[in-house]
């Protein structure tokens, strides 16, 4: 990938993880998340092994842990929820630093925190090593319905266009003395959003016309790489390890 197509969640590179076919990475990530959520919350060591596996993938993909950590802040609202649980849940309590905390709440909080964090980290790893358009090719190769693929492709492209349009409309409103900080002026913003919707709809029609004119018949052309058995085996290796860990954790 050359420059000019910067995306906050993608970290261009040329490592084995980056080169892996996107469909393999998508399957690996989904299965890895399934392993994490199926692990009993009391098997603390298993979550440590999952984190080690992720760290190994990051080191192969040359992703600094700090880069992942700053982007993982997106889960902050769930972390707050996790920390509230021990204070609000009922049942038997334990003393921590002089506070009586619910034992059940502590475990529930831990459950949300560790599984949520690992899930976010897996998703970030997938996003960091796979360009957005590769993700779409990957989904297509996994036979996700063509309509979903088309919608995802168009969202990827037009989110920026519509955001730019919204910015221009806002500037034009502000230039005419609109100050959205006052509650009674919120109406203009709402009407702006309405106008934006109509304009986006009209643009959708024009985009469709332009696509049909170039021979589009409902399916995006596939330009991705195919994945052989070796790619699937190596790509799924970390997830397979996670599955073994899950098996051990589930063992009575």
């Amino acid at each position: 990938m050359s420059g000019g197509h910067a995306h906050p969640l993608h970290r261009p590179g040329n490592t084995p993880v980056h080169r892996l076919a996107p469909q393999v990475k998508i399957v690996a990530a989904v299965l890895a998340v399934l392993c994490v959520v199926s692990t009993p919350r009391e098997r603390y060591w298993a979550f440590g092994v999952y984190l080690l596996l992720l760290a190994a993938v990051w080191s192969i993909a040359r992703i600094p842990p700090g880069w992942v950590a700053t982007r993982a802040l997106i889960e902050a609202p769930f972390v707050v929820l996790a920390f509230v649980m021990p204070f609000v849940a009922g049942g038997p309590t334990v003393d921590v630093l002089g506070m009586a905390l619910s034992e059940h709440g502590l475990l529930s909080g831990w459950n949300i925190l560790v599984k949520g964090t690992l899930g976010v980290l897996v998703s970030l790893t997938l996003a960091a090593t796979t360009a957005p358009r590769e993700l779409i090719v990957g989904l297509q190769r996994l036979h996700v319905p063509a309509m979903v693929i088309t919608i995802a492709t168009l969202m990827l492209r037009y989110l920026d266009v519509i955001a730019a349009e919204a910015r221009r409309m806002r500037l034009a409103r502000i230039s005419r003395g609109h100050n959205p900080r006052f509650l009674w002026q919120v109406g203009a913003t709402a009407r702006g959003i309405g106008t934006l919707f109509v304009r986006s709809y009209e643009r959708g029609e024009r985009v469709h016309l332009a696509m049909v004119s170039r021979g589009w018949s409902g399916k995006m052309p596939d330009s991705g790489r195919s994945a052989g058995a070796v790619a699937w085996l190596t790509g799924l290796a970390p997830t397979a390890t996670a599955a073994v860990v899950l098996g051990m954790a589930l063992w009575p």
Partner: protein
Amino acid sequence: MAVTPPALLVERLAYAYPDGHQALYGINLRVEPGERVAVLGPNGAGKTTLVLHLNGILTGQGTVEVAGLPVAKPHLKEIRRRVGIVFQDPDDQLFMPTVRDDVAFGPANFGLRGTDLDARVTRALDDVGMAEHADRSPMHLSGGQRRRVALATVLACDPEILVLDEPSANLEPRARRELAEVLLGLDRTTLMVTHDLPYALQLCPRSVLIDDGVIVADGPTRELLADEALLAAHRLELPFGFRLG
């Protein structure tokens, strides 16, 4: 001996929109291979409606043929390969995450794959001078660059006839000139819908003037634009300071 059919043949084309508004009242137009023709006319004259008939997006009464092939349902795909429409707003045309994907979209729909597809994409981008931007997002290009990429997306389909809708709209003077140079270098049958009369003069030896759904004048661009009475009667005028004798 076989006679080469005209690149475009439109006969008695009439069309009314579903709401009853009659946009075209019988258009006759013949464009020979290699010709560059400007389609002039005021807003609402029916220019864009005509363009949408050329590749079968709209179908009215009368006939449209592209290089001998009638525009009709059984061969719409081939018609859409033969007629390359570059729409007015490049943001409507460029919808893929990178320039390369977008240029490959058309030819891939028409069945090209692998190295043939790559070669076609490279050549189209070379033709418009945008090869070094292949991996960028269209979002990060200037207006003039986007316009040239939009042109490449259509050139990559190797059309018999290139149809440009207001190609110079919203372009700064330099981008406008660069696009003109690209278009002059293409050597392809071209139909250019425009309000930009000097641009029509620069690029198209022949012009047709459409108003109220009919062709009211057809001739050498210079003669058409020198006829002030004709232009005035159809709400067209040359920019300030221009005069053709």
